C-alpha cells in the first residue's frame, strides 16, 4: 500500500534513470563525471562545473532527516492526514537533499538529524516508490 494515495510520478527524460533505479531497489543519484558533485533532482548540466558528463550513481540510501513537517490538514478529501513529509540529507554529500516520506514510525518519533535509510515499495506495475525508514 503506498503511504499516500498520490498520483504516481511521471518519469521524464532526465529522471528516468532515477525511477529505473527504484525498480531495482537502488537509490541512484546523478553524479558529475568531471567534478564528482552529486545533484538531485536530476538535471542535464552540473551546477558546480557546468559539465554535461554525468552518470547515475548508486548511493547507500542512508542519511539524516534535515527537515520535516507533519501535515495535519488534508488538502484533498481522502488524504490520510496526518502524514509526514521529510527532507533527507544523504550521507554522500553535504547538502544533497531529497524529499520523501518516513514510513513505519509515529509522527512524534520523527526528529531533525534522525538517521534514516531508504526502502522501496512497488505502487504500480511501472513505478516503485522510495521511502525512508528509521535507521539504527
Amino acid at each position, binding site marked *: 500500500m503506498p503511504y499516500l494515495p498520490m498520483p504516481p510520478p*511521471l518519469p*521524464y*527524460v*532526465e529522471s528516468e534513470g532515477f525511477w529505473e533505479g527504484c525498480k531495482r531497489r537502488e537509490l541512484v543519484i546523478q553524479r558529475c563525471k568531471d567534478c564528482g558533485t552529486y545533484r538531485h533532482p536530476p*538535471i*542535464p*548540466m552540473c*551546477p*558546480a*562545473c*557546468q559539465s554535461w558528463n554525468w552518470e547515475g550513481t548508486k548511493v547507500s540510501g542512508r542519511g539524516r532527516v534535515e527537515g520535516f513537517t507533519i501535515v495535519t490538514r488534508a488538502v484533498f478529501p481522502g488524504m490520510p492526514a496526518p502524514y509526514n513529509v521529510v527532507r533527507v540529507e544523504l550521507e554522500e554529500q553535504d547538502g544533497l537533499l531529497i524529499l520523501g516520506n518516513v514510513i513505519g514510525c509515529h509522527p512524534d518519533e520523527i526528529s531533525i538529524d534522525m538517521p534514516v535509510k531508504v526502502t522501496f515499495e512497488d505502487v504500480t506495475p511501472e513505478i516503485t516508490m522510495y521511502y525512508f525508514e528509521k535507521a539504527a
Partner: protein
Amino acid sequence: MATIKDKYAIVGIGHTDYSLNSGRSELHLALEAITAAIEDAGLGFKDIDGIVGDHPSRVDAMTIGSALGLRDFGFFIETDFAGGGVPGGLLHAIAGIEAGRATSVVCYKSLNGSSKLTLPGFSFAAEPHELGFTRPFGLLAPAAYAALAARRHMHQYGTTSRQFGAIAVACRKHANRNPNAIMYGESMTIEDHQDSKMIADPLRLYDCYVEADGAAACVVTSAERAKDLRQWPVCIMAAGQACVPCLSRWTKDPTVNENETSYLARQLFSMAGLVPADVDVLQVYDDFTPLVLMAIEDMGFCSKGEGGPFVEGGRVVWPDGKLPLNTSGGNLSEGCIDGFNHVIEAVKQLRGTSTAQVKDAEVAMVCGATGVPTSGLILRR
C-alpha cells in the same frame, strides 16, 4: 524618454538543431542553446547575471540560473505572449542593464513543440474569460483566428490564397538553403501550396507553421562591453513592445484603428530614426501566412490592402528580392522556435553568416507575432 538606440548589442547567439523529435528535455535544449550563446560571445558562465525566459514557462529562469551555477543573479523576467513576446525579451534585457541590475543577460526560448515531450502537467492555457465564448463553438486553435482575419482581408482587399502562398513558397525556398531547417530538402511550388489540404478555410496546410523541437538563445550586453568580446557586435537600434486595447488575446477592440503591429513599427522606426525603405532584410513571425502579409502592410512596407501584390513577383525572395523575408525559412519552413529563430537569423544576416546572405545587409528588422500583443527589434551592423 531616454533613448536606448545603439547602446546595447547582441554579442552571442546559440541554437540547437531543429527537429520533429529532439529526444531531449526542454531544459536540456535550453542549456545547449544558452551555453552555445555564452561561448559564442566569448564570455564565461560567471559573467551572466540576468536571464530572460518566456511565459508560459516550460523552463523557467530559476532552473536555468541554478543549472548555470549563477551566483550574482539579480535580474530575471519572463516575457509573455509566446511569439509576440520573444523580441520583447531583448527589451527586457536592456531594461535590466539600464536599471543597473545586470551586465550580461541571456535571453532564450526552448520548446518541444513537435514531439510534445514536455513536463507533465504543463499546459498552454488561454485566458479563462475567453474560453467560454470560443471553445463551445469550435474555436480551438489560433489557426481559426487567423482564418477569420484572412477571410476579412480577402473580402476587403481582394487578397488571394495564391498571394498567401507566395509567402510560404519564399520561406520554403530559403529553408532549402538552411541545413538546420526542418523542411530542408523539401521543395514547394505555388501549386503544391494550392493543393495542400485545407485546415481552416482559407488557411491551407502550407499556410501554417511547422511545429518543432529546439531552443535558441542570445546574450545581450552594453555596446561598450561588446567591443571587447569575441564577435562583431550587432547593435540594437530599437526594441519595443506593443499592445492595443483587446477584448482578449486574439480579439482587438474593433473601434481602435491602429493594431499592435502598426503601433510597434511606428515606435521602432521612430527610435531608430529610420523608415521602411532602410530595412535590408526582414524577419516576421510567421505562424500563418495571412498574418505575415498583414504585418508587412501594418509595418508600412506597403499600403494597407496592397500586401498581396507586394509579396507576389519575388519581392520577398532571396537573393533578388528587394525585401528578403524570413531568410532561414521562418516558422513556416525552418521550424517554429516561437520567433527566436527570427532573432538568430537577423543577427546572422548582420554578421554575414546567413545561409541566404543578403548582400551588404546593414539593417535587419524582427517583428513578433501579429494578432497578439507583440514586440520587435531593429538591428544594425
